[in-house]
């Protein structure tokens, strides 16, 4: 008799096997499955524009499949974007799409999580690269293109190649003034911007000290190492958060890797080794410590986006700027990640503190992150931002520079107009 060797399974192998109705799957295998949700945003109009006659004939395969959030250029910047929004609203009405969130609700990824639409063990795809964010609450989620989204609206079905997995084990805890943003910049700097290409990343170890917001920041930037999903194990922090957003433990099925799962690579990170860091132009893996570039001057400081626009991010900034003023010659822009996060920051005076210090407030949404409107830079200007990308031209001007950092580092920099280590202000 042949000896049967049972090898443990990774998170993604279990989730994809379950969805594909297979007993087990192995990396490299191609499976066909029906995702739980399809996220689209301002690109919805272009997506449905590809399949007009087919939508007339077949309709949307399942009105509960799509989640649509208008967030990228909100409120509309011009006639063209306004018409785009109008077409989306017409599509939503015509096809009875339930999960629709209009302008002002927030950045799509934050909205998906805070409306309780992303649940542990689910498969969610979206026509936005940062769809990988829902790994924060134990879902497998990843980005696709517009054409794939159009096909999904009609068929509800797609293929996925089962990815190998990289296991990253986090140890210890952050020093004061160091945050999850510094950690993920450190990790991307370590593995490079293509270090997790075609692979999923699982985060293991001492995660109990990381809030859902912290995990969101890390999972969100998974795509900046080209990972196909970046996932945290469900724990009490997740269960409590999900309960708060109306999702009970009976509403989902927790999935996690077996102890003896087989990994492509394993890497350990000691969180107490991480220091305030930035991604310097024009790549996210161009890692520098704040110490190295201390004193570099900035024209604009931006706190917001799906990466770092939550209440806890605004609060950290307000604590640094309380009773102080943004340095003359520097502009501070704040765009909360969602209406809900904005409300939290309004309730305890965080927003007042920021506005008193001289901050400009924007509508909850993507804001200046993608360079379509709001906070576009002039040539030779420099922004420090809590966003996830610092590519050339990303914020609308190819002769400008973008540095990425934590909300604390951005706030400290706004205070002095030059790159400042937040540890100096928090000690």
């Amino acid at each position: 008799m042949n000896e049967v060797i049972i090898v443990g399974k990774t998170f993604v192998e279990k989730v994809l096997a379950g969805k594909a109705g297979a007993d087990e799957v192995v990396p490299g295998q191609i499976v066909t499955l029906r995702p739980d949700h399809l996220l689209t945003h301002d690109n919805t109009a272009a997506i449905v524009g590809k399949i007009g006659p087919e939508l007339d004939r077949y309709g949307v395969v399942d009105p509960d499949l799509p989640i649509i959030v208008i967030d990228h250029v909100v409120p509309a910047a011009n006639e063209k974007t306004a018409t785009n929004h109008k077409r989306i609203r017409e599509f939503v009405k015509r096809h009875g799409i339930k999960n629709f969130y209009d302008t002002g609700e927030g950045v799509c990824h934050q909205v998906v999580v805070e409306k309780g639409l992303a649940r542990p063990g689910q498969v969610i795809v979206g026509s936005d690269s940062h769809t990988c964010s829902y790994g924060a609450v134990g879902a497998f989620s990843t980005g696709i293109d517009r054409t794939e989204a159009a096909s999904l609206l009609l068929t509800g079905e797609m293929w996925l190649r089962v990815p190998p997995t990289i296991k990253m084990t986090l140890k210890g805890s952050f020093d004061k003034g160091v945050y999850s943003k510094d950690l993920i910049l450190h990790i991307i700097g370590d593995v490079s911007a293509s270090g997790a290409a075609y692979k999923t990343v699982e985060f293991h170890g001492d995660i109990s000290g990381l809030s859902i917001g912290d995990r969101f920041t890390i999972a969100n930037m998974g795509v900046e190492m080209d990972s196909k999903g970046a996932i945290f194990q469900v724990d009490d922090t997740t269960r409590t958060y999900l309960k708060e957003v109306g999702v009970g433990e009976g509403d989902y099925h927790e999935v996690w890797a077996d102890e003896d799962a087989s990994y492509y690579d394993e890497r350990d990170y000691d969180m107490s080794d991480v220091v305030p860091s930035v991604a310097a132009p024009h790549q996210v893996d161009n890692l520098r410590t704040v110490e190295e570039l201390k004193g570099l001057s900035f024209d604009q400081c931006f706190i917001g986006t799906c990466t770092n626009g939550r209440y806890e991010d605004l609060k950290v900034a307000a604590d640094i700027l309380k009773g102080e003023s943004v340095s003359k010659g520097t502009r501070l822009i704040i765009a909360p990640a969602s209406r809900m996060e904005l409300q939290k920051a309004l309730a305890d005076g965080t927003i007042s503190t920021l506005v008193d210090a001289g901050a400009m407030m924007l509508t909850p949404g993507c804001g200046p992150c993608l360079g379509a409107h709001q906070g576009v830079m002039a040539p030779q200007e420099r922004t420090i931002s809590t966003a996830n990308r610092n590519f050339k031209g990303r914020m609308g001007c190819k002769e400008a520079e973008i540095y990425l950092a934590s909300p604390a580092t951005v706030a400290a920099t706004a205070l002095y107009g030059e790159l400042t280590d937040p540890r100096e202000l928090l000690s």
Partner: protein
Amino acid sequence: MTVWKYGDSINTDMLFPGKYTYTCSTADEVIPHLLEDLDPTFHEKVEEGDLLLVGGNFGCGSSREQPVLGLKAVGVKAIIGRSFARIFYRASINQGLILIECPDAVEAYRDGDEVDIDIEGGRITVGGKEFSFPKLPPQILEIRDAGGLLNYARKKLETRG
């Protein structure tokens, strides 16, 4: 035939700036901005049948498909690269744009070299030297051969009735 050479980590913002993402969607709208922040005159000079020879992590960043749409529409025959970012790779399959992941071929290329591609055989010849590249699995080739994902989906829907 021209071989257009670009380096590592060419992201989709360089291939098609984000500021146009929600105002330009069709190939006609995309082409004037194709590679605008990387090689501004590319869209005027590129010809049907040209090749791109690129470094690692080509197409990283945003999931916007306009770069793929535009490169296909101007007649780029294939992109030969050290490696491609995941979403860009998938988007290319969905548009029927051919990507060839072959670091050795990129390394071997010298200006003026003849490049010959045998897609079905998974072989590429650069300046007389032959290299092999991984072929796509049959299920995926079906999508490409149908002329892209939407045609593939349409066929499937028609069969279902």
